[in-house]
């Protein structure tokens, strides 16, 4: 396990993976408490979700959640992939595919959250 000498991206990316993980845990707990324990319970409806998403504070929190989640998740997949893939061309291909997926998730997610009006 190359825990400390992380050859793809160095110690900064390694640190960022830990840091985003920690922040994501806080955001996840907030998200769960508000969305499922306070607001909607087990059943969510447009009315309940729209009221929350339409406020600037929640737009900011949800956008941050999305950006950090996409980074942490896809960087994790990249960590796994680069552990097993030895060929350079394949690394470039997988990295490009992950960047495309990041682009799609961020575009779709941010376009849902930011311009949203209830």
């Amino acid at each position: 396990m190359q825990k400390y000498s992380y050859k793809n991206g160095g110690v900064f990316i390694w640190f960022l993976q830990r840091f985003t993980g920690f922040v994501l845990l806080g955001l996840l707990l907030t998200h769960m408490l508000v969305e499922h324990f306070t607001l909607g319970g087990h059943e969510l409806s447009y009315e309940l979700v729209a009221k929350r998403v339409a406020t600037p504070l929640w737009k900011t929190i949800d956008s941050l959640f999305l950006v950090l989640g996409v980074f942490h998740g896809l960087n994790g997949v990249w960590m796994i992939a680069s552990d097993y893939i030895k060929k350079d061309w394949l690394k470039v291909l997988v990295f490009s595919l992950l960047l495309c997926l990041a682009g799609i998730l961020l575009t779709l997610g941010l376009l849902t959250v930011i311009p949203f009006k209830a």
Partner: protein
Amino acid sequence: MRLEIPFAKYAWHSGTIAWLLHRVTGGALIFYLTLHVWITHHLGKGPEEFDSMMKLLMHPAFRIGEIALLAAIVYHSLNGVRVLLVDLGIGVRHQEQMFWWVIALSFVLVVLGGLELFPFYLLQNPIFKGLLP
């Protein structure tokens, strides 16, 4: 392409299991994130589209998947905290015990969450309701 299989490369101990489970649950969570973003984007299409999507999620397959999601999130979070602590140099000597605490705590939280979620599925879901006397 040369694949190095973890089973052959690493000795099996609790750390190996923790590491492998962290990767498997992480992969599952990325799949869930993609699904979640796609489902949530129906919010922009108006109340009818979004609520019909929510109704689709009442299907038992999604409800059981929700408990699996809980398990993946709880394990990945708790083990993530363990990894962070060990990386910070906290409790390095106890990392093996910490792993078993992660497993025990995950088990308790998933059982509690499941007990909270499952009876609701039985009562609220028309498909489940049909199975009741």
